[in-house]
């Protein structure tokens, strides 16, 4: 006779109560990961946080930090550097998130289809992916902007085109590993169709790796986009943009250093925050 054993299901890790034990590494990871939310809130609230309109001159030009009512000084036509930075950070942050969301969706879909179908579909999709992966980002961006006309949207499109293949590769790698597990065959025998297998039995297993990659990627994208706007491939002139603001005012570096340096520091701060947050997400999802 079968003997029913007493059974107590342990609580899954993610349902454990959040403790505020500051010695536990988990607590720090949670704090780190919430930096993503904090940064997004700051970006959303940029209009409220900015003391001035970033586009119009509001005082004497080239006032030093702390002078003329400008906390971080003013630029060559008297606009507030702090306000321009806050708006610039907002633009970079959302641009990075948009590109990542796009890459995640397109790449994830391509990877899922390739990995779960296998065979020639897999080969074909991965060849295409590799083709895109081989394109150099700045050259492609210049080409797109040159043919479609300069616009921030066009730059974002160009970056997305080179960005999704990373996600396609990662998702497809995870999916094909999972597809070799007997649980997929078991699901097939249980009557699950192709789509159901892909969505229920494969995709959830690939998500953690993709999410970790995405969160570590925000910092890279902030830097890449700043680089492109530094090259003049970002938003057009009056719009506040960290890379462009820094590049246009590079000649002031020796006298009015705050004008080019403050936006540069803002880029660095964004990138560091994104990396800390990304690392924390990785530690939470994949504590090894």
């Amino acid at each position, binding site marked *: *006779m*079968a*003997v*029913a*054993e*007493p*059974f*107590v*299901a*342990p609580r*899954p890790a993610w349902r454990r109560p959040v403790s505020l034990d500051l010695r536990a590494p988990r607590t720090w990871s949670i704090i780190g990961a919430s930096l993503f939310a904090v940064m997004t809130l700051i970006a959303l609230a940029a209009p409220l946080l900015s003391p001035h309109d970033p586009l119009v001159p509001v005082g004497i030009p080239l006032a030093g930090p702390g002078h003329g009512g400008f906390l971080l000084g003013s630029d060559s036509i008297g606009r507030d550097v702090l306000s321009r930075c806050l708006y610039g950070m907002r633009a970079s942050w959302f641009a990075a998130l948009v590109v990542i969301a796009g890459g995640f969706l397109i790449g994830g879909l391509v990877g899922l289809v390739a990995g779960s179908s296998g065979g020639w579909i897999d080969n074909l999709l991965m060849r295409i992916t590799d083709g895109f992966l081989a394109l150099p980002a700045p050259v492609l961006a210049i080409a797109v902007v040159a043919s479609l006309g300069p616009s921030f949207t066009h730059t974002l499109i160009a970056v997305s085109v080179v960005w999704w293949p990373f996600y396609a590769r990662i998702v497809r790698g995870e999916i094909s590993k999972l597809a070799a*597990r*007997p*649980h997929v*065959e*078991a*699901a*097939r*025998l*249980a*009557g*699950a169709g192709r789509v159901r297998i892909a969505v*229920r*039995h494969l995709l*959830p*297993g690939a998500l953690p790796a993709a999410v970790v990659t995405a969160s570590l990627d925000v910092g890279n994208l902030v830097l890449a986009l700043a680089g492109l706007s530094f090259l003049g491939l970002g938003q057009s002139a009056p719009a506040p943009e960290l890379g462009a603001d820094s590049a246009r005012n590079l000649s002031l570096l020796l006298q009015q250093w705050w004008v080019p340096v403050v936006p540069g520091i803002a880029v660095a701060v964004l990138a560091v925050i994104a990396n800390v947050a990304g690392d924390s997400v990785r530690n939470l999802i994949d504590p090894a």
Partner: protein
Amino acid sequence: MSAQLAPEDVLTDEGYAVVATAEDLHVTFRRNGKAIHALRGISLEIRRGEILGLVGESGSGKSVLGLTLLGLHGAGATISGRATVRGRDMVSATDAERREVRIAHLGAVFQDPMTSLNPTMRVGRQVAEAAGSDEEALRLLRLVGVPEAESRMSAFPHELSGGLRQRVMIAMAVAGNPDLVIADEPTTALDVTVQAQVLRLLRTLRDELGCSVLMITHDLGVAAQIADRVAVMYAGRLAELGESDAVLRNSAHPYTLGLMRSRLTLGVDRSRALPALAGEVPSPAAPQPGCAFSPRCSVAGPDCVETSPEPVEVEPGHHSACLRPLAVVRRTDTMGPAVLTARAEPARIDQDTAALSLRSVVKTFGVGKGFGRKRTLHALRGVSLQIAQGESVALVGESGSGKSTLLRVAAGLEAADSGEVELSGGSRPQMVFQDSGASLTPWMTVEQILGERVRDLGRAARAAKVREALSLVGLPAEVGAARATQLSGGQRQRVCLARATIVPPPVLLCDEPTSALDVSLAASVINLIARLRRELGMSVLFVTHDLSVARVVADRIAVMYLGQIVEIGASDRVTSAPLHPYTRSLVSAVPDVGLTPVILPGEPASPLNPPSGCAFHPRCADATESCRDTELGLRLQRVANDDVDRVACINIDLSHVPTPVYITPKGA
């Protein structure tokens, strides 16, 4: 050189009686913030020149004891007590001292030689590194019986079969004449015929070299066959220790008695449910207070929960850690009375209706070797098999003989190159896999997984159906909310069976469903499959490499060799009066208490290049010239015009079926 090193210890090989000891050894690991108590105070000694069998189920701490003696326990472990080798304590020694002891006195063989051999290095060089010179390496490879040792020196590990790799590992282990060889499940990954060869080799080496062997195994039959003394471990402590015969035939501890009774042998009574130990091995994260065996012990009393029994000498040289006197333990039926009296109803078989029929099924795989060059692997070379409704058939054969492939073709997971697969009623068979954990989707709950087969039902009906399926396999309804990782191995296999039977299939396909389970759990899963089959009227096709399992679960056994069925017949007849030479060697290689196996020479043949004529001829003792003939066209032939027994061999008298020896169990 260390100061503790007394020179006479190292230099004189004479004058010591004990090679290694464990003295009140505790080893604790930390995993995910939890303390894992792997060893909880174990003391024993390994004598000079003896083979000590260390037996226990998974998690009992036997491998940890071996690794601690080797000084390979890792930095994360908290250790108290001593583990000495030739008088040197491996616990308190520095890394350099441990290495020195390993080189001078120890050798090691592990379960999977593929992970311990360097895949990028020729085996000759690897052995030479351990042995000191190429000549010595060659001598050792010959010593361990590697055929054509000279040419094998330049082979890479992956070019050798599992059995040959294990021989190479053993050659490295005995290089430099160690005093003690620690062998951790060295034959678990091997086929029975090869296992018998390797066990014989270890014994011969011990006799010739005079070294001691610590033989770690979960298989009591293996221990019985090779060990002089046996130590039985349970939950990190010693349960019983003594001469092999005394421990295995005259057990003194309730746990050993239970293991011996739930052990499957070719003599088990097939007409009853198997006696199975209740419950499961305790988790090393939360050790039981008092005697760890008390929740499963039928002679336990309140004192057992308070006092942790120490091993005491119950007979000369025979120790047991139990609070009850020997007479009480031996008098009691340790399995509980209910189990032994359960006589199973025979299943109803409808011989006239075939539930599954396979006709001349051929399946090949193209395997790539390097660039371009594809080779053909002949996995199934024309297999015909019919399974009647309600009947259970077992497929046995060595690794690579095509058993799993046949099952997968029957399941429709793999398409046959040619031949027919016909299922009665056309509905899909269901399958239970060897690795139950991997066959459950890790992020889905049991309820979601089971519910997948009854998706067309409404929510409430589905939930009710899931509860019903769980209770049928003896699991409480709460399991529905759990994920696979939260379940034990036995519970997972039950969940897989629940998924397969929530809508009873006409045919249940089982691929080694018990081989990953502990001895005491395997019996209960086999009982469960038998009960489900009876109650749901299913046919069963059961793949196993273990003849004693096949004999219990099946009405008929089909023996496969290199993609063909070479013999088929009633279970009792095949296991007690086998006809085909290959079946005969399989039957005689089953390790058991008090039996000497007949050893089949040679290595399993490769399905990349099946021998001509009868594929078994290179290893067959009865082979004649005509067996090699390419035109042989060997087919399964009826034995004495009966419908059950068939065999494919030209040198067998087909005029009468040998009488099966029905084994009557004691006390039936």
